[in-house]
């Protein structure tokens, strides 16, 4: 009895502390974004509510925030979609087809993902410059797909291998080809897993920083993380209100996604991590 009371009070104290630690920076971010000035915490200047920061960020085209947001959405959605398609094909081959070097392929993918991004970006810049792709969406989409593929492959292999073989056999009896089996049988059954992989791929592409920093030069292809990182004021004063408003707008879709799909994201992350 005493034990469970101790456990409960410990648990709830821990939960309150954990929530506070996780959410405090966001509360502060939101407070600054709705404030007339960023220094409202100093006693002399009380908090005054305003929507001006959001208005500026959404309507002032010279800040290019909407362009960054559009670029980020386009690049992340396309990367995630293609990544899932390519990883599904490969995961199907690995779990369902007999060919030499299957395990080798999985470990090759794992080894490749260990290489630090910095060891790729220099050469990638040279390559993109030589084909004239610097500052275009495809300069980011193609490396993003390649970069996220290993993780997607591992997660999908773990989901696909849980699907009973009898389902494939039944499909073959009905005269399906491999491609049809993948599309009509495996993908629908593994849909939750495939969706997890899509979500994770989207989040990884959306958050990527180094490639985007190196391979874009202005608002034509620059993504939100780089846009916000390089957001500077005109007169030496950092425009914190604008930066935090932009951060709130960018964080919001991610927050909504995680609140809705918390289970899917955790499922994807753990099945990828624990197989490795």
């Amino acid at each position, binding site marked *: 009895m005493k034990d469970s009371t*101790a456990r409960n009070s410990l*648990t*709830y104290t*821990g*939960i309150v502390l954990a929530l506070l630690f*996780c959410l405090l*920076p*966001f509360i502060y971010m939101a407070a*600054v974004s709705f404030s007339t000035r*960023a*220094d409202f915490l100093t006693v002399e200047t009380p908090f005054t509510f305003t929507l001006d920061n959001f208005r500026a960020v959404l309507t002032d085209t010279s800040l290019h925030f909407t362009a960054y947001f559009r670029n980020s959405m386009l690049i992340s959605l396309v990367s995630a979609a293609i990544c899932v398609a390519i990883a599904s094909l*490969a995961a199907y*081959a690995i779990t369902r*087809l*007999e*060919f030499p070097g299957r395990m080798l392929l999985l470990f090759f*993918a794992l080894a*490749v993902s260990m290489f*630090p*991004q*910095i*060891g*790729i*970006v*220099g*050469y*990638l*810049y040279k390559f993109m410059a030589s084909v004239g792709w610097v500052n275009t969406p495809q300069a980011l989409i*193609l490396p993003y*797909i*390649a*970069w996220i*593929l290993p993780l997607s*492959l591992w997660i999908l292999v773990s989901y696909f291998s849980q699907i009973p073989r009898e389902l494939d056999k039944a499909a073959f009896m009905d*005269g399906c*080809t491999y491609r*049809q089996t993948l599309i009509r049988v495996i993908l629908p059954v593994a849909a939750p897993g495939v969706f997890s992989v899509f979500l994770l791929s989207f989040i990884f592409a*959306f*958050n990527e*920083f180094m490639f985007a920093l190196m391979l874009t030069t202005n608002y034509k292809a620059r993504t*939100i*993380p*780089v846009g*916000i*990182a390089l957001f500077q004021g005109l007169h030496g004063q950092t425009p914190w209100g604008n930066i*935090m408003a932009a*951060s709130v707008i*960018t*964080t919001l879709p*991610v*927050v909504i996604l*995680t*609140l809705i799909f*918390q289970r899917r*994201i*955790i499922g994807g992350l*753990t099945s990828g*991590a*624990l197989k*490795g």
Partner: protein
Amino acid sequence: MKSNNPLRQADPLTSQLRAAALFIAPLLLLIGLFILIPVIGTIIGSLFRDVAFLPRRFVGLANYGRLFSDDRFWQAVRFTLLFIAISVPLEIVLGLALALLMDADTPVRGLLRACVLIPWAIPAAISGRTWELIYNYSYGLANAIARWLHVSSDPVNWLGTSFGAFSAVIVADVWKTTPFVAIILLAGLQAIPKELYQQARVDRAGLFTAFWSITLPLSRPVVVVALLFRTIDGLRIFDLVYVLTHGGPGGSTTSVSLYAYEYFLTSDFGYGSAISIVLFLMALALSLVYVKVGRFGPQAQ
């Protein structure tokens, strides 16, 4: 479509091979073009003097030799190693605590799991800028809290001193990546049979005894996985220091990745490549150590 079928029955292996080749081709093509070739290009590039306005020239291992006498490189290595040595254990300990909280049967479990994911899910560049504002010397949240709690009478110069900047990077990184560690550890906790805890209760074992003798030893494999992931990832740290401290003050928080980036930026491709390769070798060496320790260490029962 139908014509495929007899072929598969007649010669299943050839047809399977052909299908497999077709199915893995896109993956190999993209990884080959955008990771493998750049990696090889970087390795070869590290053997050349490749700077702006001068002809490219083969120099053998000269770029690597240059590293030995480069104090700023060693400063970056020191920072990066110190960064993982402090942040990774913190993240594992806090992550385990967080995982236990997320595993506990409470009415707010779903909410807690979702909220904990948010710091991990948003771009590091955005959290980096938010922490930059939090650490602002004259009006940031960190010094405001210190003032309210009467911890210190003078504001702390977080980003202006090397110790302050180092602590700032650690706190921001722990905030962002502990959730990831917690989620991996949570999966390990959930795999522990609940009967063990019931047995412990029958044996009148206390909470901490149960934790020490059941939870900790049985989650060891998953702790090793989390350690490995975080160490490899921590070695590459770039976004956070780029945004939060710009590697300063005085280069004290410049990571190896950021240091290599500075050379790519100033078009010294050869030297930047050599630094990147050394970083990869560091990651490789550390992960081999983990694999050895993880597999051959004393097996807990």
